[in-house]
């Protein structure tokens, strides 16, 4: 789960990391007032979960009230790569001479946290990592001890940070690591970490992604998620407790288990269709979850046909079949053709229960997917 910049900055500031003076605004008037309060020049920054906000026109630097009004009016309500901007951060513009990068993440290959520092901040760090891996200094951290002070110094010096400011950068990195550890971060980043003409070091941007599996022990961060949900259907999936990702095709996909659902998506593509979504109903799904899943996929207007693929381990075929029947019997007319394939635990019983007036039943994964792709094609013709 990703926090907004302003939320991450609040976390960082509370932990003692210097951040620019800033105020969140939801209307043009609020933004202009905030800018006057802070003092020009200020940056007006869209608060949305997309990368490359600046390039896309979501960040503007303004020098007076008129420009602030114009910029806030333009940014608030704009569509930024599919996300509508409903709030902006009005922030003191920092007069910088240098831009650094510091970050903490989990190195999954090593199973250990890793701290990273680079003097090439202010640009896409993933591109730097690809073009010039040596430009980023890395230090693995033993999770049993946490980051030693010397490790923070070591990685900062190895990155080639100037001696005068190295102490401040090390201290910020230590704080960032502790915050990452205490608040169950998956990624914590400051890019750019700006160095001003008078030698101050300040976090001009802030990224903090939280491990979703740890939200149970970070209740205040879990609450921030409400604000963060983008797509309406993805928000609905959240409410139902499904793993769901919306895609751009017209074949709806429901299944159990991430690997098998991904495989079903891949097969839709393989047989010439386009997947509309990833929807994993999880293990042991009962009738109500089945009905909720169908409701989700039916309410996606892009969907023309649905493939329902269940391989029961803990999930029972007869329960799924009853769920499908019950859900579909509520409609006078089935909204979109549903092709079902059941295998594994109680699959045989399930196949017998399914009402073939309402659904098309197929015996194999391949046949079910092809059936759905064909049905979707028929609808579009």
């Amino acid at each position, binding site marked *: 789960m990703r926090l907004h910049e302003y939320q991450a900055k609040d976390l960082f500031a509370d932990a003692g990391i210097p951040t620019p003076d800033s105020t969140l605004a939801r209307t043009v008037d609020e933004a202009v007032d905030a800018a006057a309060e802070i003092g020009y020049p200020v940056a007006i920054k869209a608060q949305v979960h997309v990368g490359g906000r600046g390039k896309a026109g979501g960040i503007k630097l303004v020098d007076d009230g008129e420009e602030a009004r114009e910029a806030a009016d333009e940014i608030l309500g704009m569509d930024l790569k599919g996300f509508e901007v409903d709030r902006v951060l009005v922030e003191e513009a920092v007069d910088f001479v240098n831009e650094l990068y510091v970050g903490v993440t989990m190195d999954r290959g090593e*199973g250990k946290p890793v701290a990273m520092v680079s003097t090439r901040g202010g640009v896409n760090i993933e591109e730097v990592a690809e073009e010039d891996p040596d430009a980023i200094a890395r230090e693995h951290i033993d999770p049993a001890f946490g980051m030693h002070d010397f490790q923070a110094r070591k990685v900062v010096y190895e990155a080639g940070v100037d001696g005068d400011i190295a102490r401040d950068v090390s201290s910020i990195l230590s704080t960032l690591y502790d915050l990452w550890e205490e608040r169950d971060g998956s990624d914590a980043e400051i890019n750019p970490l700006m160095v001003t003409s008078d030698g101050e070091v300040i976090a001009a941007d802030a990224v903090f992604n939280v491990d979703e599996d740890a939200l149970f022990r970070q209740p205040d961060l879990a609450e921030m998620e409400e604000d963060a949900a983008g797509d309406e259907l993805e928000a609905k999936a959240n409410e139902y407790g499904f*793993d769901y990702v919306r895609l751009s095709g017209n074949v709806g996909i429901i299944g159990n288990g991430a690997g098998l659902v991904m*495989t079903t998506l*891949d097969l839709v593509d393989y047989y010439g269709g386009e997947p509309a979504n990833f929807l994993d109903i999880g293990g042991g799904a009962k009738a109500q979850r089945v009905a909720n899943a169908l409701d989700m996929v039916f309410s996606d207007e892009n969907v023309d046909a649905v493939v329902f693929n269940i391989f029961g*381990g803990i999930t029972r075929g007869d329960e799924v079949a009853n769920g499908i029947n019950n859900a579909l019997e509520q409609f006078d007319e089935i909204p979109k053709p549903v092709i079902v394939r059941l295998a594994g635990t109680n699959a045989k019983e399930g196949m017998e229960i399914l009402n073939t007036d309402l659904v098309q039943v197929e015996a194999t*994964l391949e046949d079910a997917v092809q059936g759905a792709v064909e049905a979707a094609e028929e609808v579009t013709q």
Partner: protein
Amino acid sequence: MSVLVDDDTRVVVQGITGGEGKFHAGQMIEYGTNVVAGAVPGKGGQEVYDVPVYDTVSGAARQEDANAAVVFVPPAFAGDALFEALDAPVDLVVAITEGIPTQDMSRVYRKLKETDTYLVGPNCPGLITPGEAKLGILPGNIFESGNVGLVSRSGTLTYQVVDNLTERGLGQSTAIGIGGDPIIGTDFIDTLKLFEADPDTHAVVMCGEIGGEDEENAAKYIRQNMDTPVAGFIAGRTAPPGKRMGHAGAIVSGSGTGTAESKINALEDAGVRVGDTPNEVADYIEQFL
């Protein structure tokens, strides 16, 4: 022959009095697994299906000679339960629990490296040696004893491939679901080593998915060290970058690492036959044997 589990494996179930733990302990016993004990703090002295419950894993290991633990403990307490299993000690720990915080697993992983224990999982269906023992939640009835070793990051995808194999009379030596989390214990390479050394495993199926570099590393290992033929499958060819596809580990990062394409290429370069569909994987195995 088989790997990691067989008739002699003596299992303690951590969390045997909980809903999931109890149900699957029953299923394991029904399959013929030698479940010798349960371990639940505060429930020592009780019995579940005539199996004695102990307060601690070390107590169960000592009293009942348990040498493997299966963990059904909820995510908030699972990290601690895994440390307890490693401390007991047992030779094999199978962590079924889904949703363990990654930082907890990072600490467990560090401890694991100091031991000789195999940890399978977390967030996995477990493992099975057909006809002998199953440790976990796999549906026993789809498996058949035979000579195909199977290793997979995903549960239900494993069942799909096994179904395709069994249908053609291609039984399995051992099938292992290593789990879909970013940090897991036993990985592809550990498992491939075991299969390569097992005289009764004549061919191997490896099912990977997007995210991380485990499949690429496994490809390197296969190229350099394996004589046993391997067929592969990679799920997530159509996954868009930056979206987590269910499993915490299944994500293609913005910079393009962890893609299906990179994994398929690496495996094919190592001589692995990668199927476009699960059924095609079974075709390749049939050709190998």
